[in-house]
């Protein structure tokens, strides 16, 4: 899949290949703001951060992998943690699940029967959901860094 044009305003270079002087403070501030917006968008909707930078391949794959993990995890009746956590591990699970952004709501709507971790499948489902969240956070962080011109 052809993909990955340069991120927004890639590092400016002159004709000799040397890095040019950094932009004005207002340009830097605008770029930083855009990077935050892209990072948050990438967290809310998996792949949206990359899509905003026209990195279509990464955007589609982030959306599909996180989405598949969420659907599988919820379908396997994994534990979708809620804010009524009882202990530190529940809180960690809740934070990991929240990493999927709006897909957290999808997981809750798919898993109408509630979790069943009495079988291995349910336990695996819990891991799938947590992995989806952490993977989406990694993807959003990658989009943020790419928007800042640090990574592509």
């Amino acid at each position, binding site marked *: 899949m052809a993909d990955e044009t340069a991120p927004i305003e890639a590092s400016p270079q002159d004709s000799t290949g040397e890095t040019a002087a950094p932009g004005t403070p207002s340009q830097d501030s605008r770029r930083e703001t855009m990077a935050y917006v892209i990072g948050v968008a990438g967290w809310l909707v998996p792949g949206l951060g990359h899509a905003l930078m026209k990195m279509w391949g990464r955007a589609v*794959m982030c959306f599909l992998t*996180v989405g598949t993990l969420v659907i*599988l995890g919820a379908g396997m009746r994994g534990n979708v943690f809620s804010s009524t956590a009882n202990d530190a591990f529940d809180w960690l699970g809740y934070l990991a699940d929240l990493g999927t952004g709006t897909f957290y709501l999808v997981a809750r709507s798919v898993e109408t029967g509630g979790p069943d971790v009495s079988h291995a*499948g349910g336990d695996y*489902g819990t891991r799938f959901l947590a992995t989806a969240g952490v*993977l989406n956070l990694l993807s959003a962080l*990658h989009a943020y860094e790419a928007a800042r011109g640090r990574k*592509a």
Partner: protein
Amino acid sequence: MNAGMGFKLSHLQSMLLFALLISIAFGFLSRRQPIERVKYIVWSLLLFLLIGVGIGWAMYPFSR
């Protein structure tokens, strides 16, 4: 796989799906060129499976 009340996957199917999805995501995030991505995905998938099966065998003596 049964999609009635939910997905019922075996241990091996779960591991394969997990390894495949994570490998694809890592490959796309960390590499730009298609050929580099494919190499990374295949290599990562093999390592996931090898280490998964290896840990399974390492735990076998303690399973009973």
